[in-house]
């Protein structure tokens, strides 16, 4: 008899727990660590839920008014707790691990998503974010649109390559023109070049500082550059001034420099990448003005 009472109690407990789980409302207060993820949350209409972001979340500008939780690998447990969040979303790069454990112990849901430059990883991330925000349909729509834009861009590139071979490209990240780092394998930078139909001439992995001589030796046809301190023509001039050898390169001779926003390269694939790819493709295949005008990637 006693056993039966206990069993009933346990079962009732389980049922109640299950009901409670089923009834869990979607998290209201969000902290996001990871530039691209934050952009997706905003794209899914979740900006009003955000109560804090990390230093890599720099787009859109309105995020600047939110409390900053510091760099994603050096978060402070109490700092995040002080924002009273329900959930912390971030990439597998966030840490330190002890802080993540402390946050979990404090009852905050910690959602770890992928930071890899890979469309299937992005699809998974969007599904998770969508269901957490209660916007599955919207998330599905965004992820399909992203894939569609890439597809139509590939078609465009295929077409363009019938008239012109893929140009050799280097992507340089510099600070006021100094010590430019070259994007290699596994970076979002290289992913961008490939998607836009270019050949990345650098074969190393990650971002590395190259000597000016090595860069000139690769003889890039197009130079994609991004500068954390300056932008526009002044950034290009600074780059050429600090690295005079580049001025003799093919890219400089034909004046084929393309600038991109440095915030595009941080924290996995973000929603602004298809636009950036379009921009790059046009610069890679300037001869195809006809298809430039004709095919604009589907929205």
């Amino acid at each position, binding site marked *: 008899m006693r056993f039966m009472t206990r069993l009933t109690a346990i079962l009732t407990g389980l049922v109640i727990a299950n009901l409670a789980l089923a009834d869990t409302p979607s998290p209201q207060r969000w902290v996001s660590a990871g530039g691209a993820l934050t952009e997706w949350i905003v794209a899914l209409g979740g900006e009003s839920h955000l109560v*804090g972001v990390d230093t890599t979340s720099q787009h859109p500008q309105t995020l600047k008014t939110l409390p900053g939780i510091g760099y994603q690998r050096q978060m*402070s447990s*109490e700092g995040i*707790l002080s924002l009273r969040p329900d959930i912390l979303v971030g990439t597998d790069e966030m840490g330190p691990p002890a802080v993540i454990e402390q946050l979990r112990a404090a009852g905050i849901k910690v959602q770890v998503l992928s930071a890899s430059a890979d469309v299937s990883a992005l699809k998974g991330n969007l599904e998770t974010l969508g269901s957490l925000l209660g916007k599955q349909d919207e998330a599905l729509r965004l992820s399909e649109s992203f894939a569609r834009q890439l597809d139509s861009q590939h078609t465009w590139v295929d077409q363009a390559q019938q008239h012109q071979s893929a140009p050799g490209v280097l992507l340089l990240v510099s600070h006021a023109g100094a010590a430019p780092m070259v994007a290699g394998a596994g970076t979002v930078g290289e992913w961008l070049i490939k998607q836009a139909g270019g050949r990345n001439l650098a074969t190393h992995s990650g971002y590395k*500082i190259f000597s000016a001589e090595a860069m000139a030796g690769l003889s890039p046809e197009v130079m994609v550059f991004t500068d954390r301190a300056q932008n526009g023509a002044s950034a290009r001039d600074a780059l050429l001034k600090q690295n005079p050898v580049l001025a003799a390169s093919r890219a400089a001779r034909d004046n084929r420099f393309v600038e991109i926003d440095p915030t595009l390269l941080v924290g996995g694939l973000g929603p602004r990448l298809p636009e950036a790819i379009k921009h790059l493709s046009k610069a890679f295949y300037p001869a195809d003005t006809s298809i430039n005008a004709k095919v604009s990637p589907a929205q």
Partner: protein
Amino acid sequence: MRVILQPRTLFIVLSVACLLAVWLSLALGPVSLPLMDTLRAGLRLLGFPIAGHDLQQAELILGQIRLPRTLLGLAVGAVLALSGVAMQGLFRNPLADPGLVGVSSGAALGAAVAIVAGASLGGLPEAFAPYLLSLCAFAGGLMVTGIVYRLGRRDGQTSVGIMLLAGVVMTALAGSIIGLFTYLADDATLRTLTFWNLGTLNGASYVRLWPLLLVCVLVIGWLPRRAKALNALLLGESEARHLGIEVERLKGELILCIALGVGAAVAAAGLIGFVGLIVPHLVRLIAGPDHRVVLPASALAGASLLLFADVFARLVLAPAELPIGIVTAFLGAPFFLFLLVRGRT
């Protein structure tokens, strides 16, 4: 040298400062807890039967976040300052800091290996990964110090001069290897490395705390017992020998204490500069050169300075936080300058 405060007054002042630092460190943080909640949660953690379901949050923050952090700060601060005194006594040079025998650069090298290799291997067991960094840093510090000590020994004698040179060379060597790892590291790993080099008490947990506390208690218990020997060493090595001090043994013990203490502190909290170099100076400026005073007073002052710096580090940019290595120098340097200038006029 003029004595500004008598030892007894100094100890009272430092004890009060240390208690104040501990209290601030427990009571202040980005999450603002009402004073009563902090007190009640504290009593509950001590085992007093105080009712309160509303205290869950306070108890968690106090017990799991602030308390381990405070203990870590106390231990690291005390050990760094004590090692600084031992170092300056051993080399009879006020510019000596614990980094001189290579323990910091060795630990940094160990950490760089752990961070970069760990990131590129990627397949470490989850339970083991958090300890890898600490273990590598500790082992690196011990190893490089061991080499420096070994190089300084000749015919049963330890030449402090050769050790000094060996320390400089080993530091340069370790620095270049760290540079190589920095070059090989990807962007994200690089930032981890940079932040580690600035030190932090963030993310302190009991699991990582106990080994450090054990080493600290040993060092804190042992070094002050050698105060008289250190005083004798101030006169010079042969003078100390004539006074009946086993100088070679003393050197060995001091090096071991420094290597263990700084190694463990760096392994737990990263590189925190300034404390080991300046705190002993500060204490000597105030209380004179007697090691019987300087050793315990430095331990208290180092612990207090680190806790004050940590409270500042966690509040100033909240909810983000500043690496503590930046703050220790930022707070300590002007104070030190003030004492220097005041002492001159």
